[in-house]
């Protein structure tokens, strides 16, 4: 079952009167419960593509269906509702809310976006903190967590709403090898247990070797895709 269908996506920015194509005619599909990465040099269009998939931005041309929704035509309010219900985000800089504890950061989307009732919130937050191995750190503020711990909290936050798709922009760029592996392992485990699809961008060859599907972008074009044999599903 396909969770993403992208057809001839083009995104053109106008900067100082000059048009720049960040993405050109990009088409691909991604199945449910996949672990997929987009790789490519800086400026190749990875972040732009993730923004489009996440309904944070709209394509200039082309069609994009994410989890059954034509996201290119959503207005800002509908896009926000869609993101809150369907997508989880993981950021390179972790982007945890500094005034909330680890527990509260994970709870945030359930509380202020999905308005889930308290008992269910507690159950889901605790389960995810257990799953990412940070239940004992739940009362700590982000400033008191290591980079790896922060990113695992960010993974838990992205997953707590049971999204169909998690988008991660360079999720391991600020992590050492051990922490990067832990984060990728966590994602894989969550994919296996929850059936969530993970799509992320990276430069990191250590990460590339650990995912099944790799899409390669160059100058805004999709120049290759491969399925890596030997990577366990």
């Amino acid at each position, binding site marked *: 079952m396909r969770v993403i269908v992208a057809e001839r996506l083009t995104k053109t920015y106008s900067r100082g009167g000059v048009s720049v194509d960040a993405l050109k005619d990009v088409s691909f599909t991604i199945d449910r419960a996949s672990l997929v990465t987009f790789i490519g040099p800086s400026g190749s269009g990875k972040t732009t593509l993730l923004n489009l998939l996440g309904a944070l931005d709209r394509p200039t041309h082309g069609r994009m269906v994410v989890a059954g929704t034509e996201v290119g035509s959503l207005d800002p309010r509908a896009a*926000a509702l869609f993101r*809150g*219900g369907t997508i989880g985000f993981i950021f390179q*800089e972790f*982007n945890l*809310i500094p*005034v909330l504890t680890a527990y509260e950061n994970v709870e*945030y*989307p359930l509380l*202020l976006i999905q308005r889930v009732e308290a008992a269910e919130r507690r159950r889901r937050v605790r389960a995810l903190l257990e799953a990412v191995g940070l239940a004992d750190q739940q009362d700590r503020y982000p400033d008191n967590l290591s980079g790896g711990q922060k990113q695992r909290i960010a993974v838990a936050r992205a997953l707590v709403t049971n999204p169909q798709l998690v988008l991660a922009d360079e999720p391991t760029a600020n992590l050492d090898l051990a922490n990067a592996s832990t984060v990728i392992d966590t994602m894989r485990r969550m994919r296996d247990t929850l059936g969530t699809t993970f799509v992320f961008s990276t430069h990191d060859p250590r990460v590339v070797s650990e995912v099944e599907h790799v899409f390669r972008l160059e100058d805004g074009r999709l120049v290759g895709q491969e399925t890596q044999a030997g990577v366990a599903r």
Partner: protein
Amino acid sequence: MTTIVKIALRNLVRYRRRSLLTASLIAIGVMAVIVFGASAGAFRSLIVGQMTDAMLGHLQVHQRGYVASIDNLPLTMLLSPAEVAVVERALRDRPEVEAYSRRLKFSGMFSNYTETTAIRLNGVNPEEELRTIPLLASRIRQGAGTLHPGEILIPELLASGMGVAPGDTVVIVATNREGSVNAAQLVVSGVLGSVTGPGGRDGYVHIDDATSLLRMDEPEISEIAVRLREFDRLNESAGAIRRALEEGRAAGAIGPTEVHTWEGLSPFYNIAVMIDLLAASATLGLIALVLISVMNVMLMSVYERVREIGTIAAMGTMPRTILGMFIVEGLLLGLLGVLIGDAVAAGAILAINAVGPTFDFGRETGLVLAPRLDLWQMLTVSGVVLLVAVAGTVQPAFKASRMDPVEALRHG
């Protein structure tokens, strides 16, 4: 909502130095407005009290046109005994009227047998007058201050200028309405301290003496001073008395009359208006202070948290929730300032009352300033500050709520 309040509170704590600085600024403004308002109000009440309770009464009834000619104390514009009876009936029917005093005002010559000068006199019934202006007794500087027939209370400037003391006999010469001159020998029973304003240099004689001096069969009356039970209902009461007298006029029982509150009789009213304007200016200053400081701090807050805003917006937080987060933060900042300001203001007012500072006003000396902690004023100032704090937050909060998440996440 609890979570939004929690986040807002923690963000205030996160930037604690800035929050405290802004809250202190608001607190100083709140304190200044409340203390100034209370002190100015106390000063105003004190002076108004002096004017009304020692001289004017709360309001006065005259024949129409009398006040415009009051400098001449005309004897041609008096209320006849029949008209006075109509006015008295109207006043007795009003439950808010506590007392009234009939006055026959005239000018005359004052002689100590060696020198003569002009004097303005009020012929009054002393019991009525003391019920209407109870602070009159406190103006007696020398002598027993009684006002039996044959006695006169003279203003202290005249007493010192003419070298007259209680117990001395003086002569009053007056011309009546028909131009007939008459004189009376009176004994000085007291010297009156002055009150700033019209009539502050007036003397008092018994109304029977005034009637006889002016060769009247029955006393005719220049003005009726009225004291109300509730000063706060001054204009309402004046309106009711006016209406009652208008009805009497329509029935042909009385000629045209005029009812003036103290505001229309005392030049201090203009000072009182200035005091009110100053208090309003201080409040406007406070509003500007709160608006600018809260808006400034919230704009900084939004600018510093662009990426954070981008993150929560990307996660699907609705713009109204983001708007709410910042507005609650501004509101809490204002609330912190208000609470500190109210507490300090209350302390300052208690301290002023404990010290009891005195001041002079005109010829009144040693007046004690006693500002009152007015809960209603405190609530009003606090409410205005909170509203302004929210108003100052709206623009930054709106900016945050409308932020494009892609641009915000790109922010360094």
